[in-house]
């Protein structure tokens, strides 16, 4: 079973900064997007159990090398890094087009993506990719089970879960319910040194630079700002009677009771 995991390199959570143009600064200090790591973990356990290999596909800046290295140390067999100065400022649609072009050059039974990213949080790219490639789209996976020529996914929904099946190749969007990602072993870190990281440019993918990047973006970033810190939360741990009294007092102090 061949699995491609779409990886977004995001700023280390808690250290996000905006650059002068108001974009998320991705020049340094990147890590794998958390939801992508859950998907990768499941991809690795599936290939360990059923054979096959995991390939990482990432569209990102030069600094994405570090998170890519981590995924190789965790156990992915190889990586494709789409790196091109023309990609700076690409919106979700352009990113999806690039991923689609790259995926057309890779053999896979399953493509995995994370439910959303910890920086942009758009959550649309995997659906765009699946749509453009005509792949079944199985989102919010809490469990993934390979079948013969198909895949079964337990999809979380607001009211419970759905069990859905689709023929492969298919695209699965993973959630943290897939299980905690492993830590790279030291041996894995050393082995990652000799694993292939192919760097593909827009020219390699046959993509016209005029169709991606900031100038071609169909959406425009008007303004970004850091949300104000949240106020202190009141956590009530007492028994019901004392808790009710505290909650009522809390509301009364704010004129709400």
């Amino acid at each position: 079973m061949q699995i491609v995991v779409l990886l977004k390199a995001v700023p280390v959570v808690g250290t996000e900064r905006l650059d002068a143009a108001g974009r998320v600064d991705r020049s340094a200090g990147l890590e794998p997007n958390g939801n992508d790591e859950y998907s990768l973990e499941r991809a690795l356990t599936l290939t360990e159990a059923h054979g096959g290999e995991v390939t990482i596909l990432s569209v990102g800046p030069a600094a994405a090398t570090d998170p890519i290295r981590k995924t190789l140390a965790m156990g992915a067999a190889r990586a494709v890094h789409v790196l091109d100065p023309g990609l700076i400022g690409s919106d979700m649609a352009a990113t999806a087009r690039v991923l689609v072009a790259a995926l057309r050059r890779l053999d896979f039974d399953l493509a995995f993506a994370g439910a959303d990213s910890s920086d942009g949080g758009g959550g649309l790219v995997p659906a765009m990719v699946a749509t453009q490639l005509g792949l079944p789209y199985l989102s919010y996976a809490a469990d993934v089970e390979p079948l013969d020529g198909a895949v079964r996914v337990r999809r979380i929904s607001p009211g419970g879960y759905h069990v859905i099946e689709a023929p492969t190749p298919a695209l699965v969007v993973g959630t943290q319910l897939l299980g905690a990602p492993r830590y790279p072993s030291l041996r894995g870190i050393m082995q990652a040194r000799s694993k292939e990281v192919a760097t593909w440019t827009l020219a390699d993918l046959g993509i016209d630079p005029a169709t991606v990047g900031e100038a071609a973006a169909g959406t425009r970033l008007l303004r970004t700002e850091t949300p104000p810190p949240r106020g202190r939360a009141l956590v009530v741990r007492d028994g019901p009677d004392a808790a009710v009294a505290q909650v009522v007092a809390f509301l009364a102090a704010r004129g709400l009771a």
Partner: protein
Amino acid sequence: MPRRVLGSGAPVDFAPSPEHELLRQTVRDFAVREVEPVVAQHERERRFPSDVVAMLGPMGLLGIPFPEDEGGAGLDTLAYAIAVEELARVWGSLALVVAAHTSLGCGPIHTAGTPGQKERFLVPMAQGRVLGSFGLTEPGAGSDSGGTRTTARFEKGPGDGTWVIDGTKRFITNARYAGTYVVTARTGTRSDGSPEIGAFIVTDPTPGFSVGRIEEKMGLHASSTGELIFDRCRLPADQMLGGRGDGWKLFLRALDGGRIAIGAMAVGLAQAALDASVPYARQRQQFGRPIGSFQGVAFMIADMATEIEAARLMVYRAAWLKDQGRDHALAAAQAKLFASEVAQRATNAGIQVHGGYGYMEEFKVERYLRDAKLTELGEGTSQIQRLVIARRLLDLEVM
């Protein structure tokens, strides 16, 4: 087998290799997520962290600097120092378990073991299936390790004969929890009257070997420090490590490497004190402003950070020299001496920054001070380090 040395090999290059960076991040993530939540309880209950140690083996953290064919992760001493530093930053006791196991338990077998001894003893240790320990210190042999009283008497017998060990070792790190101990014993007297010291590999259980009293220490409460008792303990001849009389040299060499790890542990503890002090000095308000805005506090923080950086670089340089196969005895002694004294000052300053809160167990900085004190004592006291350094510089028998 040539050592794989990471880094660019440029004459001066302070940029860690990507592998070293990833290792640091991995150990840090692991320490913060998996280890930190259990530290307080283990320390309070003086409970050895068997459950956490069991997680280290599969990650390769119990055989970092040893080649893969010896069960290790195939990294270098610098990687090992970084890992110990990051563990100490969260938990001194765990860092000491790893340092004693790796440098002192595995180190001598890696250096002097026969292929058969490596296969049988080192591989399971470096893979993390068996914890290692090192028995040098005795009631009458601390800094003066030449005062070793434990004896090994050779008896001809079945096979190649046996060694019969008698004596007691004291203050042995990982006692009771180790499965393999490397210990020294007198095998005879040299022509100049000095003791002939041999090194032996003892596995637990072995008839005649037992672990005695476990000490209650000032700090590092979750690490185990205890007595090893040998009462006509018989070892087959092939459990002698190195040649007859090589034990002494072998142990000095292990200590050179071990000092790098204790230096790294000191850096980690000092860094922990700084990590706690910076946010505290920014948040804690007195006289209507953060206490970090008073020079009295701010300059303590500046000194801590500066000294820690110097100590770290000395430790890394000693590690680098070892990885280059160069003489590292002086650099290791200097790094250990300086880093342990920096740790003492920085962890003390950490309490001072916290004021009265720093004296309370809840704020953890008092633990860093108690734990850091060990680094001025273990693997040679600061006085012994100064002797080692002065002897090298003066070429005199400084006493």
